[in-house]
């Protein structure tokens, strides 16, 4: 029952998710190709966060199948540990480790989880911090950084384990407006480098600039999926149109 591996790196087939009696996801089908940048948007409660959290198994889906790089997600640990390293995640609340410095945050997974050499990991981490333009903060603690800086560190931390896919769960929603652009720029830079990205976000400017596909979700289902041009030009779906109007009027 495996899909065509050369095409999709992530494959969701008839995925459903229940929280108690509430159905968060209903029969979701989605194929993401390598190198594709997908933006998922929709009103709150539409299930978009739940969707991407199912991909790295922070949530367990109840129905259907999810394949990540050919591996079928299930509840046994053996393969899932590897899957989690293939899929990096950036959270809305950053979730940096407050008791570790910035550079230690990046080195944590490679050194402690994968047993990589400390010196080499440090080098790589510094390189990544350079890339997100925050190398001078390497020895600081997260609490000493601004929100935008913390989120960039979080992006670098996720990249440090060399994932194939990066998931973004509303990465700029908790930031003050003046810091949003620095994070978006980092994300655009990442997109240009060829990373497969799935972003849940309200930042339509980002979607327009970077996305290969824009997906609109409502009430646990994918209602519309289109290229950005088509999506923003004018919409077949009234719910999507209403949402866009709401968002873009700000």
């Amino acid at each position, binding site marked *: 029952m495996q899909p065509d591996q050369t095409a999709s790196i992530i494959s969701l087939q008839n995925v459903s998710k229940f929280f108690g009696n509430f159905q968060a996801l209903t029969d979701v089908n989605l194929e993401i190709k390598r190198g594709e940048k997908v933006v998922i948007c929709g009103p709150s409660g539409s299930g978009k966060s739940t969707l991407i959290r199912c991909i790295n198994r922070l949530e367990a889906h109840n129905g259907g199948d999810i394949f990540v790089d050919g591996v079928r997600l299930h509840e046994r640990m053996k393969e899932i540990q590897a899957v989690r390293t293939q899929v990096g995640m950036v959270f809305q609340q950053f*979730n940096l480790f407050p*008791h570790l410095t910035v550079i230690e945050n990046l080195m944590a997974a490679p050194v*402690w989880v994968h047993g990589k050499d400390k010196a080499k990991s440090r080098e790589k981490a510094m390189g990544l911090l350079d890339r997100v333009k925050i190398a001078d903060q390497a020895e600081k603690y997260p609490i000493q950084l601004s929100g935008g800086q913390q989120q960039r560190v979080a992006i670098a931390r996720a990249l440090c*384990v060399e994932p194939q896919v990066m998931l973004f769960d509303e990465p700029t929603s908790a930031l003050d407006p003046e810091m949003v652009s620095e994070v978006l720029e980092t994300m655009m830079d990442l997109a240009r480098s060829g990373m497969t990205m799935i972003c849940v976000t309200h930042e339509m400017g980002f979607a327009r600039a970077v996305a290969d596909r824009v997906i609109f979700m409502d009430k646990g289902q994918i209602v519309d999926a289109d290229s950005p041009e088509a999506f923003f030009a004018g919409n077949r779906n009234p719910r999507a149109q209403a949402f866009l109007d709401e968002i873009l009027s700000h």
Partner: protein
Amino acid sequence: MRREQPMYADTVQSENVLKKPLVFGGIALVCAIVAFLLGSAALISTLLPTADVASIPLQLSASALIGVAFAANLLGISLLPNGVQRLVVYGQFLFLLIAFVLVFDLDMAFIAEKGPTLLIEGLTTTLYISAISISIAIVIALSAAIAKLSSNEFARGIATFYTSLFRGLPLLMQLYLVYLGLPQLGFFPEAIPAGIAALSLCYGAYMTEVFRAGILSISRGQWEASRALGFGSGQVMRRIILPQALPVVIPPTGNMFIGMLKGSSLVSVIGVTDLMFLARNLGSSTFNHMEMLLTAAFIYWALIMTLELIQSRLERHFNKSKTR
């Protein structure tokens, strides 16, 4: 004794209630009645050695005098400026303490003679029993807290049974069960190990809840981020959660240690020669109970006050770093 702030102090000073004759008279009356009931015999005999202690009129007038003197004293203090009030009150406490010693006819020479033993042997025993017990209790509590939070039913069941049992029984009972009960099973513990075992198990159960709360206080996002990076659950605990739980847990642990110092006095009941035991024993042969009891009480009090001072410093330090 740290100065605590009074309640919302009004900008208007209320009438000094003691100046009202009704209040003054009331206080004097109550005090006189109490003095009469408790029997001012000892006081009379100290002040007027030749008087006939049993005479009722004498007792009545003595009680009345005490009552008026007490109320007048309160009134006098209340009329003083605030800073001076505090000094005078503590001065009077000191005076009462000295009067106490004199009335008891305490043998100060006896205290000087036996005091050092009390201090050196008693205090040392109390301190090292408490120190060993809290160390063991910490180890037990950490294991039990993690067990209680794990998804392993067996570990959870045992940990829950443990905390329920050892928080549900009095410490004295646990002490007896260990000291008198284990020999029937084939383990013959001596008094000190039995005491340490009982203290560790009892306080370990209380500290399990402290550690559990501390671990749960770490935000869920830390778990999620670690999991997303591929950390296994053991590593998440060891590297991410526990290091963050430590500062949260240290202040309550300090309080537990102070509690354990007081609880350690119970081991005197099974014959361990700690401060409490010596306080009761050193004076018994010569009927100098109170000398030793008071001295030991003072030692306990001084020790605990010192520790509480350190404890509040500790709490302030850890609260500061949270709001860096």
